[in-house]
């Protein structure tokens, strides 16, 4: 492991821990943006350029902004008074350690895991593009269709209601 990887990993995990422990939700969202950038940096160190840039473009550029706006529009900026830890935090730690051990044990002993490290495949942006446009064209089209449907739905929800129809004619 290179020192750069260790540093990015530590920053990412610290930021992720901050997301869970801060009380102010906007601070949490900003810490989450740091986590996303850290994950992108790890992708870049593994020379997965496309995934790294897509991570920044989608998660830091769009998802973080979306979260921040959702927080701003749905609640006041006041942070809750009560502690972030619930009363049963001790039991929570025990359960999470157990689940982690079980999952880790299952993954390490699974037959699907290659025992020896395989050579990293040569993936360039060009290969990814050709795969998306050739082999995986159908999933891509389906994703496009689903997103279009979601967008039309969002537009319909945001549409100004006709003043003639009263609240009874309103769905949802």
């Amino acid at each position, binding site marked *: 492991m290179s020192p750069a990887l260790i540093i990015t990993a530590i920053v990412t995990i610290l930021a992720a821990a901050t997301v869970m422990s801060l009380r102010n939700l906007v601070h949490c969202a*900003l810490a989450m943006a740091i986590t996303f950038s850290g994950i992108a940096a790890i992708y870049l160190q593994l020379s997965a*350029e496309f995934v790294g*840039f897509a991570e920044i*473009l989608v998660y830091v550029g769009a998802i973080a*902004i979306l979260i*921040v706006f959702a927080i701003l529009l749905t609640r006041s900026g006041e942070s809750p008074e009560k502690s972030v830890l619930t009363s049963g935090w001790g039991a929570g730690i025990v359960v999470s350690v157990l689940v982690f051990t079980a999952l880790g044990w299952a993954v390490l002993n699974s037959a699907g895991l290659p025992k020896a490290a395989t050579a990293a495949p040569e993936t360039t942006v060009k290969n990814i593009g050709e795969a998306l446009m050739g082999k995986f064209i159908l999933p891509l089209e389906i994703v496009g269709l689903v997103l279009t449907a979601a967008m039309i739905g969002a537009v319909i929800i945001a549409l100004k209601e006709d003043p003639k129809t009263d609240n009874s004619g309103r769905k949802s």
Partner: protein
Amino acid sequence: MGNMFTALDQIFVNVLHWLVSFVPEPWHPFASALLCISFILMVFPAFFSIITIFERKGIGRIQNRYGPNRVGIPFTKIRLCGFGQFVPDGLKMLTKEDIVPRAADKLVHFLAPVVMLIPVLLAYAVLPFGRKMTMTDYDAGLLFFFAIGGAVELAVFMAGWSSRNKYSLLGAMRAIAQMISYEIPLILSAVTVVMVVGSLKLVDIIAAQNHYAYGIAQWNVFTPWGLLGFMLFFIASLAESNRTPFDLPEAESEIIAGYFTEYSGFKFALFFLGEYLGMFAISGLGITLFLGGWTSPVSFLTWIPSYIWFFTKLITIIFVFIWIRATLPRMRMDQLMNFAWKFMLPLALINILVAGIWHFMAVDWQRWIVCSFLVVFSYVILGRGLMRGQKLGKRNYRYAE
């Protein structure tokens, strides 16, 4: 003779190699990166300070006044036409008191200008300033540029939210809504170039434009889809860098200074710097995609060093930015959104289709006619659709009785 021009063209690259050769071998990549970074940190802020004077003087001339014309070299009679103004301007910014509102979120308020500047400076890493003058030549350089640009929105939000000021928050909301809306036509207009060139690498995009027919360069802007793409890119880049007529996020007459209302002193200067450096970077990308990057427009001027061509084009585009700022009034929010979603987005989508037709039709005069017709036709139809229902005409004044 030819050798001399090649040497002049590659002078910065050779100086870099010469400087790097002083450090021991294992440190070469590190030293080279450090020198490249210091090059960017020296050249572009210096360029920024010159451009601020250029802008103030230019707008002054357009508005029939002089602009700054006093500051020159101290204790002499030399006044340099006022081009020394940026030194006292900078000193004033540095020495001003840094005011932080009591209710502000101190940490986020402090970090916002820094977060603003980092992605903007990172964007310069992939821009080719001249022949063999690219800092990092990523395979997906274009994607890197757009990905990094997305982080600026977060900085704008941080500034607007942490100030605990209505005007700041309103400015940030406006800025983010505008940036997200105009990012779509910006990226879609760049996609046409990627489709035709077949690469996301900025060096390849320039190489594809670096040949001449009848002595005139074959830049992307000299094709129907390229011209439309460049126009869309240019308008979207005006909006992305918050310039007039898209400067609603910092509309002085409505919301004081938008998201940086509560910033003073050096932090304000950092926002100002970040905004201008972002403008240069996005203009540089426009030059690379559509205006041939560092290549010469005519074949008999190819001996002029490549970086001079790049900066000449950059200054020309910045001049158009300043000219537009001095000419056009600010748009209204609904006009801004209508323009982005009902005009620019469909036009950018049609342009992708036009670029595809251009790519697959035979290299002939027919494709010029088909593609030009499509571009002009869609422009007229969409433009009429946008103007429909708008009451344009003489303004109707109402007076109190």
